[in-house]
């Protein structure tokens, strides 16, 4: 049984009744199939209704759900036993908040990079809640350079509250690590596909987010600052996070409208954690489709397009001119 959201409470009672009826029905004494179907339909309808009208802040809750599939959950489904995880940045250490390696997805051998959160407290402490240190970003870049040398495309899973703000992180150059990745990814001569699967937390997310295509799962978020952080600074009150979440326009639909991402990937009803396999199948289909489009491009063409993609991002006006729209 997955942990439910506050806003799912109305259906929890129904789900319990459904469960009871199913147990009764399994005893085989009475035929309850009609009642069961009626309740199941009602649950599906209510869920669809609830998830259709979620507030931006509730999107953030879904995006951060502890049962949501994380990078290694998708890797397991997509690559099976073919995945080989690699460790270390070769300068300082290995960062469990960032995973990297090579694996096979369909016919393609690919490099896989991803933030990694934990499904419980112990795992989260080990993974630092998916907040990388500089060595995490440097490990990611090292594996991406390997991918470039062996001409393998890169698949990135983005899921972090942000880069870790700590003493060691500053001492070892968190800023430089992020900035270096932005610059180097912009010139990495193999296709890069990025998937925001949960939280796209600011520079810590973008540091592995320079892709030829950037996709977002339906209930993932991507933002310049967390809603809580924004509320604390601009409203001087972290409890105004709901307002900040609305103001920041951090949902996939917002980013698609702004031309920042390429496509929204639909999630199963109730969120990706309700059916990780189905979500992974959606991701896999998108990977195969877009690698087929990108692999034939020459490195020059690929890099020119990648540069143009990010170059076009931004809205401004030159005096007495109209506002320049984002081009893509």
């Amino acid at each position: 049984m997955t942990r439910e959201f506050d806003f799912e409470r109305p259906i929890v009672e129904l789900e319990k009744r459904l469960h009871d009826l199913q147990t009764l029905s399994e005893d085989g004494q009475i035929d309850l199939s009609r009642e069961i179907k009626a309740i199941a339909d009602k649950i599906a309808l209510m869920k669809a209704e609830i998830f259709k009208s979620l507030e931006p802040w509730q999107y953030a809750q879904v995006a951060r759900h502890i049962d949501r599939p994380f990078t290694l959950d998708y890797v397991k489904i997509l690559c099976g036993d073919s995945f080989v995880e690699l460790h270390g940045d070769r300068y300082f250490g290995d960062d469990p908040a960032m995973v990297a390696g090579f694996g096979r997805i369909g016919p393609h051998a690919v490099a896989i990079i991803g933030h990694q959160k934990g499904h419980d407290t112990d795992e989260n402490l080990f993974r630092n809640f998916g907040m990388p240190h500089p060595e995490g970003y440097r490990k990611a870049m090292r594996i991406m350079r390997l991918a470039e040398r062996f001409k393998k495309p890169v698949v990135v899973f983005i899921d972090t509250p942000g880069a870790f703000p700590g003493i060691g992180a500053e001492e070892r150059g968190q800023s430089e690590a992020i900035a270096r990745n932005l610059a180097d990814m912009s010139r990495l001569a193999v296709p890069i596909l990025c998937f925001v699967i949960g939280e796209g937390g600011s520079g810590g997310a973008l540091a592995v987010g320079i892709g030829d295509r950037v996709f977002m799962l339906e209930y993932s978020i991507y933002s310049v600052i967390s809603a809580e952080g924004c509320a604390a600074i601009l409203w001087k009150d972290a409890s105004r996070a709901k307002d900040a979440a609305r103001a920041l326009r951090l949902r996939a639909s917002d980013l698609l409208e702004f031309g920042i991402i390429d496509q929204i990937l639909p999630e199963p009803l109730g969120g990706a954690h309700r059916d990780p396999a189905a979500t992974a199948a959606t991701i896999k289909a998108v990977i195969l489709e877009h690698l087929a489009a990108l692999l034939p491009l020459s490195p020059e063409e690929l890099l020119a397009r990648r540069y143009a993609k990010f170059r076009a991002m931004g809205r401004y006006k030159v005096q007495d001119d109209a506002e320049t729209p984002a081009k893509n």
Partner: protein
Amino acid sequence: MGWLDRFTGGRKPPDPTDLWKKCPKCSEILLQKDLERNLFLCGKCDHHLRMPVWDRIALLTDDNSFLEIDQEMESVDPLGFVDSAPYPERLQKAIQATDSFEAVTCGEARLDGRPILLAVMNFEFMGGSMGSVVGEKVTRLLERGLDKRFPVICVSASGGARMQEGIFSLMQMAKTAAAIARLNAAAVPYISILTDPTTGGVSASFASLGDVNIAEPDALIGFAGPRVIEQTIRQKLPEGFQKAEFLLQHGMVDMVVHRRQLKATVGRLLQLWA
């Protein structure tokens, strides 16, 4: 109303704090006119106070050589962002207060007779935050550097990305970093000068990517702000943490240079690389 009217109209009335400042280091009262004459260095303790944009430009360029570009580029409100005040209102206030349209001033100039491209950020304009305009102006400057093969120098002073432009601000980090990667590949020099303070999205993009990173003494430089770090790790930060000298010690900047030696230092490097 043309941009020039708006540029000169509605100047704020004189403010007593325009006449003097207190040194943040030694609390000495410093007269504005003395500061202007003394490169905004404290006459008592030599602390490097924040330097206004045009003084900084004068410091780093040959006399009357600076020609501003992209001066008329202005921010818009792509998110319709409102917190305690609407974003357009905050922008207008910043424009009035700084007599400048945005948090960065860019131009072409000469340094020791050599053509350069220079960007100078203004912390007084919404904390020097980077939105679409800062990102676009810096990127255009870098691209001009690539085009003309002129060295590019960026003087940063910024609290980071501009929250009011949301995801657009974040993407300026990608844009500027990609433009630097092109300069690097073409072997056109790019020098980053980090001044107090340089943090967040600016620190984590173009400010940290110099072929040479130069910091001013005692400048606060880091990814996360000290308060955020303290709240996260719940411990006191060590003395001198995230100061220019700390970054030098940890290998993140090439040198810490006194303001009086800044132009000569950059000039020497450019001459060696020419």
